[in-house]
C-alpha cells in the first residue's frame, strides 16, 4: 500500500497519539491498581462502619495516584494547544515517566535511575511537542532495551553554563541507539513494539523545529535545551 505525502505527514504528526493508543491497555492496568485499593478500602469501611486515619490516608494516597494517571492521559489527549508556554522540565519528565509506565515491560522489568534537575527550571515550548520529544526518547530507550537482561535505564538532568542550557540525557544498556534495525517493515512489525526509525525521524525533526538539539550516542540520547 502506498501512502500519499499528505497521509505520511498525518501519521508522522500524530505519532505520539498513535503511541498513546498502543499504551491503552497498560494505562487501564495502571488505573486499576489504585482503583482496586479505593474499592477494597471503602468496602472494608462499609463492613465495619467506622474509619480511622490510616484508612483515610490510604484512600487519599490512591485517589492522588488516580488523579496523576488521569492528568497524564489528559495531557496526551490535549493535542490542539499549539501555543508556546512555560514548561517546568522536572514536571514534564515525571509525567512522561508516569505515562510510559503504561508499558508494562518498562514498568516491571527495567531498573530506572532518575536524576532530576536540582532546582525547578522551565523552558518555553509547545507542550505537545515537548512531551512528544521526551516521550519519544523514553520509547526509543524502551525499544532498545526490550531484548536485554538486566535492563537499566537512566535519566540525568543537568544545567550547563557555557552555553547556558539544560541537558537531559537518556542512557540505556541495550542495543545501541545508533544501530539501524536491519529488518524489513513486516519483520519490524512483529519484533518491535514502537517504530524506532520513525521515532528517530520524529525526534530529529521536532527537536530542530523547537530549537532544541538532539545528540545520539550508542547508549545515550541527549536533548540540549537553550536556557
Amino acid at each position, binding site marked *: 500500500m502506498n501512502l500519499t505525502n499528505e497521509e505520511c505527514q498525518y501519521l508522522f504528526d500524530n505519532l505520539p497519539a498513535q503511541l498513546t493508543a498502543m499504551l491503552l*491497555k*497498560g494505562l*487501564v*492496568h*495502571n*488505573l*486499576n*491498581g*489504585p*482503583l*482496586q*485499593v479505593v*474499592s*477494597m*478500602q471503602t*468496602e*472494608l469501611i462499609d463492613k465495619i462502619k467506622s474509619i480511622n486515619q490510616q484508612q483515610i490516608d*490510604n484512600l487519599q*494516597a*490512591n485517589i492522588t495516584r488516580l488523579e496523576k494517571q488521569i492528568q497524564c492521559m489528559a495531557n496526551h489527549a490535549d493535542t490542539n494547544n499549539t501555543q508556546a508556554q512555560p514548561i517546568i522540565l522536572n514536571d514534564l519528565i515525571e509525567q512522561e515517566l508516569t505515562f510510559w509506565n503504561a508499558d*508494562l515491560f518498562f*514498568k*516491571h*522489568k527495567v531498573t530506572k535511575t532518575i536524576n532530576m534537575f536540582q532546582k525547578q527550571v522551565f523552558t518555553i515550548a509547545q507542550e505537545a511537542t515537548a512531551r512528544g520529544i521526551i516521550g519519544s526518547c523514553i520509547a526509543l530507550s524502551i525499544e532498545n532495551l526490550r531484548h536485554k537482561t538486566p535492563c537499566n535505564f537512566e535519566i540525568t538532568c543537568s544545567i550547563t553554563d557555557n552555553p547556558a542550557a539544560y541537558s537531559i540525557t537518556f542512557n540505556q544498556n541495550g542495543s545501541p541507539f545508533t544501530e539501524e534495525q536491519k529488518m524489513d517493515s513486516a519483520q519490524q512489525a512483529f519484533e518491535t513494539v514502537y517504530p524506532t526509525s520513525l521515532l528517530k525521524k520524529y525526534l530529529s525533526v521536532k527537536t530542530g523545529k523547537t530549537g532544541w538539539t538532539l545528540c545520539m550516542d550508542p547508549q545515550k540520547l541527549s536533548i540540549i535545551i537553550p536556557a
Partner: protein
Amino acid sequence: MRPYSVQQAYSMTDERPSISILIAEDEKATGDLLANSLARADRQIKIVYNGLEAITALQSQPHDLLITDLMMPGADGMEVMKKAKELHPEIMIIIMTGYASLDTAIEAIHRGAYDYIRKPFRLDELEVSVQNACERILLLKENQALLKRIEELDSLRQTERPAQLSQPIFLYPSDIPPSAYYAQPQTGNDSLTHLERLSNLYEKGLISLDEFNLMKQKLFAQI
C-alpha cells in the same frame, strides 16, 4: 460410625486444619488489604510483593492456595503459576489482573488456574472464590488422608493377626477425636452412607474411578 462433611469433621476439634495462602501482589496497599480482608482463624496468610519473592516463598514451603497478580516485577503471574505447579502440583491458584484479556484468561485456566478475577473486583467476589477454593482444599486433604488410611488398613489386614483388627482404626486426620474412628462392625446402613460419600467424592472429581472402585471393594470387604 457416621460420615462427616468437611465442616462437620473439622468442627469436631478446636484445632481446625490451617490453610496456607500465599498472596503475590506488587501493589503493596492492595496486598495488605487483601490479607486483611481474607484473614480467618483457619488461614495462614503470607504476602509477597513481586514474582521472584513469590517463587522463593513457594520453594521454601508448600502453600495450599496461591492468589497472584498477573503483571508483576521480577517474574510475572504466569511464571509464578508455572513454578507453583511444578513445585506443588496440587496447589490451587487464583489469578487477579487489571490487564485482562480473554487470551490471558484462557491461558491461565489451561495452565491450571482455579479462578481468574479481573480488577477492579469486589472483596465479596474474591471471598467467594477463596472460600470455594478452601473448601476444595479441605476436601482434597481429607481425601488424601482417607486414601492413606485405606492403604495402611490394607497393609494392616495383610500383616497383622485378626485380633488386632479390633484396635482403633483412624480413617480421618489425627486432629479428629479418636472416639470418632473406632472401627465398629459395619452395618448395611453405615456402608450405604459411606458409599454415598464416596460417590460424592467421585462426582466432584476428587477421586478417580479406580480409587472409587478400590475403596468401594474395601468397604464391602468390611461388612
